[in-house]
């Protein structure tokens, strides 16, 4: 079969790889109908995530049709149409029982490496390094789905791929980012990053009743999409973020702050970003945490910082004293996708939200390597790329 394979930093190729096969009784094989490039795939593309090996199949946002089912799988049958969440979960361990699916205790088959890296292993993820199990990803014609009697979500034929595909990651990720804020009707929610997750976080915050949603970026096309859902926007090339947020909140700062940027914060807006970039070049720091610093500084005391943005390693100069003295709550983690999918699918069916709004480019899987560059460089108004095998 054909797939997009990671061959090194900035080197992704459309290659022929062996077809996947059933390995465990609970497995299923999915024929992919649509897959997407996620912002967090760019961390792999840019070489910031450890644990990648040449030839790894990328992709953790995908959906398709079940074409083969393991002998122990009673949930799926051949022909089912499913979206596959990026977090692989067994449904039986203590964490899964609590709904903490992204830290499933059994699905990461490289537990020993992950234990050493993170202290304790987190869940297996599709196409996201050997630290998270080394599972082949979904930017391919076919995918093997482990624990396929738990992880996949059946979706109705009446909805298009573009309407349901993002149930596998970015929609629940934006939703969980907002839910983690415990939004009150009086809250101002500030969101850093108007990429796909930031867009979903903005709409989720609105649906959850935020008084005001403010989104921070510097790309006019992304800001225009944020404005479409009624969000106020701050272009950090033109305005000072902290001053503007304080102005909008009577000098008190936003109650809830969401970091939808993560480890590759834009370099150039403030001095600390140069410091981070220099340290990164000297291999003295792995991530650029400018957004974290700014959120801690501007957030209202007793507020909440919600961090769906992916961080990979070590950050420097985090004002922890400020965080402690202001009594801020920090909520973060990979998304517990399966916790939200049933509810969010119903909201799509009811018309509360149509996730296809975020799709700006649809291309064949063969053009994937070029689309990684287009997405990374934010060319041609690119916000979300869907690939068709």
């Amino acid at each position, binding site marked *: 079969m054909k797939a997009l394979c990671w061959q090194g930093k900035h080197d992704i190729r459309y290659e022929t790889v062996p077809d996947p096969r059933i390995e465990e009784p609970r497995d299923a094989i999915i024929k992919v109908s649509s897959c997407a490039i996620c912002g967090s795939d760019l961390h792999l593309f840019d070489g910031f995530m450890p644990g990648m090996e040449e030839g790894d199949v990328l992709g953790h946002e995908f959906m398709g049709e079940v074409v083969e089912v393991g002998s122990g799988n009673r949930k799926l049958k051949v022909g089912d149409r499913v979206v596959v969440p990026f977090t692989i979960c067994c449904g039986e361990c203590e964490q899964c029982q609590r709904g903490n699916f992204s830290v499933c205790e059994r699905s990461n088959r490289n537990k020993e490496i992950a234990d050493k890296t993170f202290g304790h292993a987190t869940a297996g993820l599709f196409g996201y390094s050997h630290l998270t199990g080394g599972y082949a990803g979904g930017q391919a014609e076919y995918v093997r789905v482990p624990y396929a009697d738990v992880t996949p979500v059946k979706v109705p034929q009446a909805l298009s791929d573009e309407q349901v595909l993002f149930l596998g990651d970015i929609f629940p990720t934006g939703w969980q980012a907002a839910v983690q804020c*415990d939004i009150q009707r009086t809250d101002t929610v500030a969101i850093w990053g108007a990429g796909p997750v930031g867009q979903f976080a903005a709409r989720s915050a609105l649906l959850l009743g935020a008084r005001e949603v403010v989104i921070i970026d510097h790309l006019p096309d992304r800001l225009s999409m944020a404005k479409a859902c009624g969000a106020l926007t701050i272009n950090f090339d033109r305005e000072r973020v902290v001053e503007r947020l304080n102005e909008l909140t009577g000098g008190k700062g936003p109650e809830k702050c969401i970091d939808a940027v993560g480890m590759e914060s834009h370099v150039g807006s403030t001095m600390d970003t*140069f410091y981070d970039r220099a340290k990164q070049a000297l291999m003295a720091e792995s991530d650029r945490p400018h957004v974290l610093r700014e959120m801690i500084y501007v957030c209202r005391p007793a507020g909440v910082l919600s961090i769906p943005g992916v961080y990979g390693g070590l950050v420097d100069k985090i004002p922890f004293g400020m965080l402690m003295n202001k009594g801020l709550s920090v909520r973060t983690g990979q998304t517990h996708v399966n916790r939200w999918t049933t509810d969010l699918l119903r909201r799509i069916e009811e018309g509360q939200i149509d996730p296809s709004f975020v799709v700006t480019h649809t*291309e064949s899987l063969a053009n994937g390597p070029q689309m990684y560059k287009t997405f990374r460089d934010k060319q041609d*108004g690119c916000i979300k790329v869907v690939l068709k095998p």
Partner: protein
Amino acid sequence: MHQGRPQTLKESHHVESRTDRSAFALDTKARALARVATPTTSRRSSATTKLARGLGWFSIGLGVVELLATRALARRVGLQGRESRLRVYGLREIASGIGILAAPHAAHRSGWVWARVVGDTMDLSTLREATEMPIPLRSHPVAAMVAVAGVTALDIACARSLQQEANAARQTTDYSHRSGIGGSPEQMRGAALVTFTQPVDMRAALPVDMSALVREQSS
């Protein structure tokens, strides 16, 4: 491109106007130095390019000095014994300079000027080491630091200006009709709450009206 774009959605492309660009604000200490380079008009855009080219030639010149007059320079800035590092820095300066001069457009040129900023940081760090040792006669590491800091400010201003010029020249797409929600923002504000219960493990805030709780506690 855009084969699968929903048919109902029509994007309009436009290039940001110069009036929009005039709203850019520089917030570094080098605001005054950068004024000449702010891309509010085509004349000023040209000034930014001239400034970048000037920095490119300066970079090459400094690099040549660091390579050919290493010992004399090391003496002047208090870096005796670190000549080999100075030579490496010289190569770095020449590479940055060539990169700036050869860059085909503002976006690439901006990247090379940012590379200079990273180099400036390394220079400052090295000079700081020199100030922590006994300073020989006729060595002036502090003065060198001040000079490098000044050039750094100029580099930052130039790089930001180039970056803004590149952003402004970029064709942008208007997605302001792509709300993705089932009604106007006002209609949809709080729409999910009808069937939503905040998970117990993600509760973070008490309601803003605490008067009932205060009354209960005081009674």
